[in-house]
């Protein structure tokens, strides 16, 4: 029997029971579609997290003090809380190229919160940041309209402010109109120098609900002369983040005379590490989704076996007739194997098509990103599923003795 004849016989077999074939195809296509879509969703969410983190700057180190160190609990007042507090002198030391050659720039961070008013309009800014101009490039925070304040503004504690998008729109309606206007923060008037470009959210807080002022001004008008909340350090290069981290640790340990026996009171978060961690998490997530999808593919495969078993049982007499007319074992085997493979391949093709359509849309807030290999894999697996799951019923059919098949009721 030529392949064309076998193919024709298989197609006729399938079309004899259209609804049943259709449902089986549906089972396989759901499996294949699920694999492609879920892998794309996993991949897409991974990519999204990655691009957000990259937007934050990948060569960024954030230094904060845990206030702890040997014996003293976090937040507890004591000599070590004073001893380990981060200061502007630390910032100056870290900015010294000779002491920390792999550090590109350093910015101090003090935060406070406060209510800003513009005439009758008021808005509670949950994060007012006092810093130096170096903060903006280091944290990848570009100014959208207007401009940043300068080092001169910091030196002379000018009352100037750069607003986040949300803050600006809340206070002035449109962000563009804010520049040059005056905002009251607490009891003090600030002149708006610029408005930051809008930032994507990386967490639950709106990163646009901020305001940035010179650190000297913040200290003089709002927060007093306490410790810094953070020091933001930009490494000179993506590949030198680890070196920079080591230098920062060493410098701070030396400057604050941390005893060798205590755990470091400084916490340094490395954005590259966070990126790595979240990429690992995304990979795990994708693998999990793929596993779930693979299970549904297997279930689809079992559907193929089931239908082929029913088909073989139903057509046992026909198999007997075919054998009586001279059909060989491998002809019967081929016919049923092709039927099973066709079922799962058609299912695979439908699944791929459905997946291609579905991945055009946002799913659960994630923009799916197709993984081409998942399409090839899903199609390959669906063909294999047909062969594997179809072979048992097909062998059963082919192995029947003609007389037993003919006598089948």
């Amino acid at each position, binding site marked *: *029997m030529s392949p064309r004849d076998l193919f024709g016989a298989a197609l006729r077999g399938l079309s004899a029971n259209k609804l049943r074939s259709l449902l089986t195809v549906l089972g396989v296509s759901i499996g294949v579609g699920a694999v492609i879509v879920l892998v794309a969703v996993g991949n897409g969410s991974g990519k999204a997290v990655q691009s957000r983190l990259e937007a934050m700057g990948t060569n960024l180190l954030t230094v904060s003090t845990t206030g702890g160190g040997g014996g003293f609990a976090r937040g507890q007042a004591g000599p070590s809380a004073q001893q380990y507090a981060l200061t502007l002198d630390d910032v100056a030391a870290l900015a010294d190229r000779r002491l920390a050659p792999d550090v590109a720039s350093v910015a101090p961070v003090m935060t406070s919160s406060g209510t800003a008013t513009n005439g009758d309009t008021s808005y509670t800014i949950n994060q007012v940041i006092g810093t130096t101009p170096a903060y903006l490039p280091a944290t990848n925070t570009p100014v959208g309209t207007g401009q940043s304040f300068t080092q001169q503004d910091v030196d002379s504690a000018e009352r100037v402010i750069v607003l986040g998008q949300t803050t600006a729109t809340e206070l002035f309606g449109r962000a563009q109109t804010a520049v040059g206007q005056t905002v009251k923060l607490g009891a003090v008037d600030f002149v708006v120098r610029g408005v930051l470009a809008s930032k994507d959210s990386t967490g639950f807080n709106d990163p646009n609900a901020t305001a940035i002022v010179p650190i000297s001004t913040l200290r003089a008008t709002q927060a007093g002369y306490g410790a810094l909340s953070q020091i933001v350090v930009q490494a000179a290069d993506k590949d030198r983040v680890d070196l920079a981290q080591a230098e920062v640790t060493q410098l701070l340990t030396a400057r604050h005379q941390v005893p060798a026996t205590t755990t470091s009171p400084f916490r340094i978060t490395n954005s590259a590490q966070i990126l790595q961690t979240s990429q690992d998490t995304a990979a795990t997530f994708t693998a999990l989704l793929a596993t779930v999808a693979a299970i549904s593919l297997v279930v689809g495969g079992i559907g193929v076996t089931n239908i082929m078993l029913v088909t073989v049982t139903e057509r046992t007499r026909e198999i*007997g*007739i075919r054998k*009586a*007319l*001279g*059909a*060989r*074992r491998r002809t019967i085997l081929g016919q049923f194997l092709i039927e099973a493979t066709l079922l799962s391949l058609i299912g695979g093709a439908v699944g791929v098509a459905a997946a291609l359509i579905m991945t055009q849309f946002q799913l659960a807030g994630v923009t799916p990103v197709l993984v081409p290999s998942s399409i090839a894999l899903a199609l390959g697996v669906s063909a294999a599923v047909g062969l594997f799951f179809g072979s048992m019923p097909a062998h059963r059919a082919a192995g029947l003795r*003609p007389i037993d098949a003919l006598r089948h009721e």
Partner: protein
Amino acid sequence: MSADALIDIRGVTKTYGAGETAVHALRGVSLRVEAGEYVAVMGSSGSGKSTLMNILGCLDVPTRGEYFLDGSNVAGLSEDQQALVRGRKIGFIFQSFNLIPRTTALANVELPLTYAHLRRAERRTRANRALELVGLSDRADHRPNQLSGGQQQRVAIARALATGPRILLADEPTGNLDVHSTDEVLGMFDELNAEGRTVVVITHENDVAARARRLIQVADGRIVLDEVTR
């Protein structure tokens, strides 16, 4: 009798099941049929006629005894070779027609030709010729459920003839047919035998048996009568 009869079975027994419940369908049958003979097999229900026929057609294997078909021992043939024998040397006609459902008369007739690896065009011609022979050219595109019993049996005969087999085995071919259709089918057997084909037909009807030239009576798994009638 020539040394190599077309069909030659020796001491064939067939037992279904084992022990207490064993059924001895054939209890030692020896039979030679020469090429070109026309044999009728009669016997009461359950005497073993169909069992014998299935063994002759290589659809079943004997429990004991030997079967030489056209000089070669069937037991020594591989599964594929047996399939080949069924396809090329033997044409079957069953009481229940056994056409493949949902498949046109023409496709049914083409089937054994497909298994004999004939090319598409050749198959078409031969199948059409076979249908013409049984007078059903105008029903080539009909499915079995669109044909009368007599027409279905004629399609089955066309299918059995298509490969030009030397032996025609028919198990109660007219069992489901009326007098008129029976006459048509028997007329066809006469013609086929006249062409030189060997015909073995199982029947319960005397006037069917009367068309044959040799009558074999089976009773309780044994041949009890074997005579030339014409």
